[in-house]
Structures are given as structure tokens and as C-alpha cells.
């Protein structure tokens, strides 16, 4: 018992006798990181949004006010919020519709080598630079690009033109239309939707689907009443990624699309070019609030069990 122990030994003894001290020491670094660097900067940002900019001098006035939040509701700014949210919603729904069958096949039917191929196929786009992918899509969608050529070869140019003449989603060519922006977002974020769905589908026991069939359910009924509810947490987990990533992106809409601003670009322009930090901060708060509501709903649906 009275074995000779050095200072290290004594520390070790103390930690063994007081487990709470050990836990405290282990948690301290991440807590500092989260508390000071992460939350601290977040609150610094939030605080900025309660200041305002002087209309005449352009100087920031350090007085608490809600005026800057009021400016968010000016038509030109509110447009940006609506545009971004609509795009994020559309991308999320699109990704779920495309991602589900892919994930289903990968989870249920792909075996051995093919399973690896599927994983690779889904992950591969994540390995190349995001910018390279977006530029590649710009070329695919261009007026003199591959897609247009395809439509021409099939003598379907009239179809594309008719589609592009629809206001809002159309434009002069696919690469300068909202549809183009949507397609690129969809492509870039799709893996983030497929992987959680696949994880949740793999957890659905086959026996349940068989039982449903044995009890006389048609495949569509099995899907609606058994498979989908069980896989829903995965879909919601994926949608958190696609929704929040679209909400915050400011590079894709700059390269592909009609130059109409999204929230990320507005933040960048207001803080970088205009020096209007309060409005930039207020804009940055919008996705935080939207995501808070979204996560709260997702939590209630049990989405975090599938992460």
C-alpha cells in the first residue's frame, strides 16, 4: 500500500478517488472550444445585428435597436430570404425523391462488390473540389453546352425553349435560370441525402416488409404504411443537411443562375463591400432561426436516432 509513488502517481490516485474531477478535466477543453470560440463568435455576431447603420454617414451606431431587423422586411431583402428558402425546400424535396430509390437499392439489393461500387459512386463526387464540380455543371448547362446539344440532336429544342420561357424558373439558357441553380444544388448535396436514408433503410427488418405482404398489402401500401414511416428519420436527417447547406451556400448561385442574390451572398456583400455589418448579421440570423425551428421539428420526428 505504501508503495512509493511520484507526482504522476499522486495525480493518478487523486483522479481515481474523485471521478468527477477526471470528468471535469476531460470536458474542459471541448467546453472551452464550444463556449468561447464557437458560441462566443456566434453571440458576437448576434450582438452586431442589434446595432444599426446611420443612413447618412454610413457609420455603425452602437445602440440597441431592432431597426436592422425591420430592414429585413424591405421587399428587396425579403425577396432574398423567400428565394433562398424556396430553393432550399425544393432542393431538399428533389434530393429526397431521387435519393430514396438509390438508397433503397444500395441498402436492399446491392451485395458484395456492388455494394462497394454503390458507396464509391455516391461518395466519389465528394472527393473532387466543389468548385470544379460547379464549373463543370456550368459547361453542361451552357447555351452551347452538352444538354442543349442533346435536346437539339433529339429535335426537342422546342421543348427546352418552351420550358425556359416560363417566368421565374426559366431564363435565357439553363445555366442562367433558377432551374440550373436547382440542378447544381441537387447534384452537389445529393450524397448527404442518400447516406442517412441508406443507414435508416438498412435498419428496417425485412421481416416487417414480408409480414406486410403476407397480410395482403400491395407494394404501394407497404411502402406508405411500413417502409416510409420507418425510414422517415433518415430522410429527415438527410434533409437537415441538404436544407441547411443550400441555405448557407453563396458560391453556386454566383456561378450558375440569374445573379439574383441568396442569403449567403447578401451577407457577403453587406459585410464585405458595404461595411453594413448589422444588416449582414441580421441576414445571418435568418438561417439560424430557420434551422432551429427545423431541428426542433426533426427532433420530434426522431431524426437524430438515424445519424
Amino acid at each position, binding site marked *: 500500500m505504501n508503495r512509493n509513488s511520484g507526482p504522476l502517481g499522486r495525480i493518478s490516485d487523486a483522479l481515481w478517488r474523485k471521478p468527477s474531477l477526471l470528468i471535469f478535466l476531460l470536458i474542459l477543453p471541448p467546453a472551452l472550444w464550444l463556449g468561447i470560440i464557437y458560441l462566443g463568435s456566434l453571440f458576437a455576431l448576434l450582438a452586431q445585428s442589434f446595432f444599426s447603420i446611420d443612413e447618412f*454617414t454610413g457609420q455603425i451606431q452602437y445602440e440597441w435597436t431592432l431597426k436592422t431587423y425591420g430592414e429585413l422586411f424591405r421587399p428587396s431583402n425579403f425577396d432574398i430570404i423567400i428565394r433562398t428558402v424556396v430553393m432550399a425546400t425544393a432542393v431538399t424535396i428533389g434530393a429526397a425523391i431521387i435519393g430514396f430509390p438509390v438508397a433503397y437499392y444500395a441498402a436492399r439489393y446491392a451485395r458484395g462488390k456492388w455494394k462497394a461500387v454503390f458507396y464509391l459512386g455516391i461518395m466519389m463526387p465528394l472527393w473532387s473540389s466543389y468548385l470544379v464540380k460547379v464549373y463543370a455543371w456550368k459547361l453542361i448547362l*451552357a447555351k452551347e*453546352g452538352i444538354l442543349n446539344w442533346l435536346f437539339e440532336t433529339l429535335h426537342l429544342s422546342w421543348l427546352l425553349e418552351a420550358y425556359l420561357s416560363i417566368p421565374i424558373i426559366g431564363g435565357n*439558357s439553363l445555366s*442562367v435560370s433558377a432551374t440550373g441553380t436547382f440542378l447544381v444544388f441537387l447534384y452537389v448535396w445529393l450524397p448527404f441525402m442518400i447516406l442517412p436514408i441508406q443507414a435508416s433503410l438498412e435498419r428496417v427488418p425485412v421481416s416487417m416488409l414480408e409480414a406486410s405482404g403476407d397480410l395482403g398489402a400491395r407494394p404501394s401500401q407497404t411502402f406508405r404504411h411500413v417502409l416510409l414511416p420507418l425510414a422517415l428519420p433518415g430522410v429527415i436527417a438527410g434533409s437537415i443537411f441538404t436544407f441547411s447547406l443550400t441555405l*448557407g451556400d453563396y458560391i453556386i448561385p454566383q*456561378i450558375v443562375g440569374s445573379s439574383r442574390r441568396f442569403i449567403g451572398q447578401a451577407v457577403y456583400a453587406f459585410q464585405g*463591400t*458595404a461595411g453594413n455589418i448589422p444588416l449582414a448579421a441580421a441576414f445571418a440570423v435568418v438561417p439560424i432561426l430557420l434551422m432551429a425551428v427545423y431541428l426542433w421539428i426533426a427532433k420530434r420526428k426522431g431524426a437524430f436516432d438515424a445519424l
Partner: protein
Amino acid sequence: MTHYLKSSTALLMALTIAGQATAQTMVTEIGDGEGQLNIVAWPGYLERGETSPDFDWITGFEEATGCMVNVKTANTSDEMVALMNEGGFDLVTASGDASLRMVAGKRVQPINIDLIPSWSTVDDRLKQAPWHYVDGIHYGVPYMWGPNVLMYSTEVFPEAPTSWDVVFKPMDLPDGQPNEGRVQAYDGPIHIADAANYLMFHQPELGIVSPYELNQEQYDAALDLLRGQRTIVSRYWHDAFIQIDDFKNEGMAASGTWPFQVNLLQGDNTPVASTIPQEGATGWADSTMMHAEADNPNCSYMWMEHSLASNLQADLSVWFGANPAVPAACTDGRGMQTAEGCTKNGLDDFERIKFWTTPVSACESQGECVPYYRWVSDYIGVIGGR
């Protein structure tokens, strides 16, 4: 996001530094070189033969002075201001929409032009230009300038368009097709000045004296013009290389642009040409400015002399499609530039160019003008269709 973080840090630094009084001292004599020099510059402005072996104006300087040059490139004027606010740099090649911000923020120090022997060779039109000469004090050495030209497809236009009309108003182009969807505009609030420049010519009753000094009425007229432009512009150009791509793959017919893109596209055998229409054009004029707390003042002064006296002026003007601040560089054979080359880059059009400056509320020509931050938010609105 990194941009955002960087800028936020820079801002914080700026706020901290702004609180301290900075001594405005001027260097009175040049000592020995400190062995290195840190410069913030536009991409393509400082070449040491790595991009193309023909274009090198750093190696000679390093050999002659022993000052090793470190280059940090910045893509926008705002990045330049942020980097200079962070500190750690000696020199910056600032455009007119950044220079006054740095003078006002006391980030740059007065330049003693007596220590720069070649100062006398600088273009007289630039020696006391308002973007670096403030209250009788020189804050910069002119570096390079150029116009924002109108680029057009020679397949669409057999002859150069004579007016900026083609990018501002819906109309049929010479090939019989409407210009809708085939023209571009610059994706920066400073483009409002191009609209104002157009109105100066076409609506003299508005009384615009400078496109960078607009009262509310003039400003509203410019925005109205730009709202009309939105209906014919399919994409606003932001990145020079995306615009080049659009002229190759999107069937673009005309756009305001820099000579840089015109040169690259012509070098690639794309059928384009450029012109400065009857209304004149906006443009940029850059100056070398010295940080208020530069660590290497001697090397800095040596570089400023080098920037005026060496092959830099001639070769850079060829490389970038710009005009030298020293007109003699066009003709004296110190580099590759020739008199014809300078004429092509717009050397004779100086009077027709309104150089970029930051719009401020207390403007010279009229009591009160619309400040830059409103240009930013309103231009976002215009692009969004408001």
C-alpha cells in the same frame, strides 16, 4: 465562410487600431535595404516570370537591391483594405475605390516624392490625381490605369457599337436578333456609375457632374436605367474567367469588361473586339501605397522607384492590357510595349474615362450624395428585380 471570418477579424483589428492615434511621419532619406518587401497586389500585377517567362519585373529588382519580394494577391478592393488593416505589409497596389478608404483610415503613410528620382516621368495627368493626392499630400505613386471597355462579338456587330445603348436598352442588334439575354453587366455596385455615366450623356438635364457623386434624383434615374437593364441581362459577371466562358459558350453579344478579358479571348481566337463608345467609360487607376507601419521602408522606396523606372511599366501594360503611369514606357523601348499598343489600350482616351472612386455622402460637386453602402444594398435589389 473563411472570407467572412477573415473580414470579421480584419474589422475587429481595424476597430482596435482606429482607436490609436497613428503618427503621420514621412520618410526623409533612404537607407540600406532591409532584405525583404511584402506587397499586396492585384492578380497578374507582380510577375516574376513564373506564369510566362517573358513577363518578369521582380527578379531584376531583387538582384539589384537584395530586397526579396513577397506577393499577396487580393481579388477585390475590399480584400485589399482588409489585408492592409491586418498589417504586416509594406505596399499595396490600390485602386481609387480603396485608396481613399485607406487614407481616411490612416492605414497608409505620406510619400516623399523627392526620394523617387523617376517621379518627374510620371504622367502629368496622374501626378496629383484625387485618388492618392489628399490635402496637398501624396499618398501613392501611380502604377497603372485602364478603361472599362465595351466588348462585343464581331459576328454580331460588323462595326463597333457607338453607344452603351446596346447593354442598357432592349433593342435589336445588327444580326436581327434582340439583345435580350445576350448582354452582361458587371456584378458590382460600382456599375451604378456606368449607368450614371450613360445618363450624363443622354440626360444632361439631370446635371450629373461625376458618376460617383449622385444626389437622390440622379441616383434614382440611374437605378431606373439599371432596372430596365435587368430585363435584358441574363447573368451579371463577377469573375473574369466566368465572363470569358460566357462569351465562348453562352452566345454573348456585348458587355462592359476589362481589356484583360478582351486580350485573353482574342488570344483564344474568339471573335470579339472592344471599343469606348461615345459616352466615354468608367475606368480604374491604381497607385502603389505604403503602409503606415511598414517594416521595410527602404525597400519600399526602392520598389516605388523601380516600378516607375524599369521594364515593369511597359511589360505590365502589355500583360494586363492597361496603360503605364509613365507614358515614356510606351515608346522608349524599355520593355515590350509600343506606341500602337498603348493607343489600343486607351492611352489617348484618358479624358473620356471617369476613374473609380468610392462614393461618399459628403461629396464635392453637390452638398449631399448617396453613399456607397446604399449603392450596395440598392444594387442587390436591382439584380433581384426590385
